């Protein structure tokens, strides 16, 4: 057995203390709120809330981060169901059945099923993570510099191939992000590259301020430009758990959605939004009444929400075992772990196995906390999404700026946040995706240092990249993803557009 059950039980003992449970509840609640608010993605939410973990003991910090992640992945369903606007991209597929259910007067049923499905998906994803992650890390011990370079390229190719409308633009921002990651001291010779004379750039652009700028400040600027109106929620929420008949009807969708989500999450670069759409399509295809999909079927909500939450467990597998993020949110978590002094990867299992099990157990506990907090606060969260933009946006800006400042007490970091905020706004306005930049910032140093190490081993011969079977498989897959995506992108867009709810509601921003 590769699971250390003694350590697992011991880690639960570390979690079930007043302080740790308090921070998990705070993290889950804050995550749900951020996830529920349209325009604030789970990635942005996790980035904004990371400064809350500074200076805390490591068990508390890790538990809070897992709470935030869990809450944010569920929170998006609230606004998707109630106002047809996904709070996070991972909840985009939930609109397809969730909003029609709300229009039919079944908002309570949709909300309770989305929460229950998120819980079931999260638990299944965690279980698979606990059993698979140690196995993968043992396999990863065979990885050398060539394999890690190929893994970085693979992760980047996946995120590029699924981001945005144009592969060319996706590759351009990928290269741009990699160039950003090369700023600072060269990892091997220590030569300062592209620091423009700033000592603050010796380690490259600070990750959290850059991230907050790209994802949070850019959204605020976009909101200022468009002046979006806050929508009102009129639905009655009178159900906290789905009924037994609803659960029976959705059992197959719950299990398949959870497995699909975990598998998709484990692919570096692919996240909850992809998992949710695949699970929805699969549920529709295997249903006896596929023609009814889109009219408000509870099993549709079950499929999408179980998939996007089980994705968390899947995404943590490559993060913990290989040090490669499974999706954009785990890319941010990777930055948070590094700030806490942890380096995810196979060595994490050797040197900090106790903390790995803390992460496992805190994620499981966070699912239960999410279920209870979600039930207790359902009406409160529905009111939260009605906060006026003229109050919400300044609040996010202040949190963003202070969150960036608080890391090093540096006004330079605040300037960086604003600069990347402007860059992120312009990039998104002209159809350049932002997720490749995020992953490039994480994977760039890994790609460069491993490529150079590989070339040093081979005395400069590039042929080493094609002599290791695992690396070859990863590089071929990376190339295949990009080419297939280039050829089929338009077909996928048309298919997804065909699955969308008809635009008969004037309230949509």
């Amino acid at each position, binding site marked *: 057995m590769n699971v250390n059950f003694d350590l697992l039980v011991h880690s639960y003992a570390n979690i079930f203390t007043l302080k740790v449970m308090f921070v998990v509840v705070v993290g889950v609640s804050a995550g749900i709120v951020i996830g529920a608010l349209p325009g604030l993605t789970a990635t942005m939410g996790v980035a904004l809330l990371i400064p809350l973990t500074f*200076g805390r003991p490591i068990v508390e910090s890790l538990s809070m981060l897992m709470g935030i992640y869990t809450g944010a992945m569920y929170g998006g369903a609230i606004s998707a169901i109630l106002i047809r606007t996904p709070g996070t991209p991972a909840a985009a597929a939930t609109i397809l059945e969730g909003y029609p259910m709300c229009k039919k007067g079944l908002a309570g049923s949709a909300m309770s099923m989305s929460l229950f499905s998120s819980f079931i998906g999260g638990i299944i994803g965690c279980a698979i993570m606990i059993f698979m992650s140690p196995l993968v890390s043992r396999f990863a011990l065979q990885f050398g510099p060539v394999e890690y370079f190929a893994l970085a390229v693979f992760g980047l190719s996946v995120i590029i191939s699924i981001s945005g409308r144009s592969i060319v633009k996706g590759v351009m921002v990928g290269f741009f992000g990699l*160039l950003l990651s090369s700023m600072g001291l060269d990892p091997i010779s220590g030569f300062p590259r592209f620091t423009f004379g700033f000592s603050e750039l010796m380690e490259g652009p600070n990750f959290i301020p850059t991230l907050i700028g790209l994802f949070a400040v850019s959204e605020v600027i976009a909101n200022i430009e468009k002046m979006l109106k806050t929508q009102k929620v009129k639905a009655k929420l009178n159900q906290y758990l789905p009924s037994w008949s609803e659960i029976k009807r959705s059992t197959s969708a719950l299990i398949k959605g959870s497995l699909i989500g975990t598998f998709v999450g484990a692919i570096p670069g692919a996240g909850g939004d992809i998992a949710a759409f695949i699970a929805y399509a699969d549920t529709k295809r295997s249903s006896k009444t596929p023609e009814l999909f889109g009219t408000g079927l509870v099993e549709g909500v079950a499929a999408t929400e179980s998939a996007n939450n089980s994705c968390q467990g899947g995404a943590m597998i490559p993060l913990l075992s290989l040090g490669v993020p499974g999706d954009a949110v785990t890319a941010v978590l990777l930055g948070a772990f590094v700030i806490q002094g942890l380096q995810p990867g196979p060595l994490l299992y050797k040197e900090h196995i106790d903390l790995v099990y803390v992460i496992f157990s805190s994620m499981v506990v966070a699912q239960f906390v999410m279920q209870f907090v979600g039930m207790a606060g359902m009406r409160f969260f529905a009111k939260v999404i009605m906060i006026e933009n003229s*109050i919400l946006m*300044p609040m996010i800006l202040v949190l963003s700026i202070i969150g960036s400042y608080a890391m090093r007490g540096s006004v330079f970091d605040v*300037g960086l946040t*604003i600069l990347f905020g402007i860059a992120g706004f312009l990039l998104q*306005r002209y159809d350049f995706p932002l997720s490749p930049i995020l992953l490039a910032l994480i994977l760039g140093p890994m790609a460069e240092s491993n490529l150079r190490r590989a070339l040093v081993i081979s005395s400069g011969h590039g042929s080493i990249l094609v002599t290791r079977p695992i690396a070859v498989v990863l590089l071929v897959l990376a190339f295949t993803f990009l080419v297939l995506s280039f050829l089929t992108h*338009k077909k996928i867009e048309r298919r997804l557009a065909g699955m969308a709810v008809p635009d008969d509601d004037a309230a949509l921003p």
Partner: protein
Amino acid sequence: MKHVDVISGVIGVLIGAYVLITCQSFPPDVVMKIGPAFFPEILAWGLVVFSALLILQALLGKVSGTFERLSLRQKGMQRVLLSVGVMIAYCAILKPVGFILATIPFIIIFMFLLGNRNKFQYLWVPMAITIGVYLVFEKVLVLSLPNGLLDFIL
């Protein structure tokens, strides 16, 4: 879309060219030929090639998606420019003036920019957000924020 894609492509080419030129001044590695310029050069060439591809796509009319033209005459863009100016000013006065005294007017300005005309909310929202964030960071997280002109009180 065509104009913007051409401009974006040109910017990409310029960034790539800047990196390639700068890399010429990087020292070669003493032990191996693979020095600090190696990886940035590969990336810069990649950026240049794909930027050129974008320009070509735009000129051949093979672009997807639509967007609104950026014009400084639009009220939206004027609000964006003003808000960026306010953010830069906030950044500049944050340390000397202090978090509390800088943040309250900052929030008021943004509430106004975002169309809030409820006078009652102007009385309590900026204070509530500022004090709330201050208490969370200073007292709960024990991360110090600049006191500035209020240093003698706080």
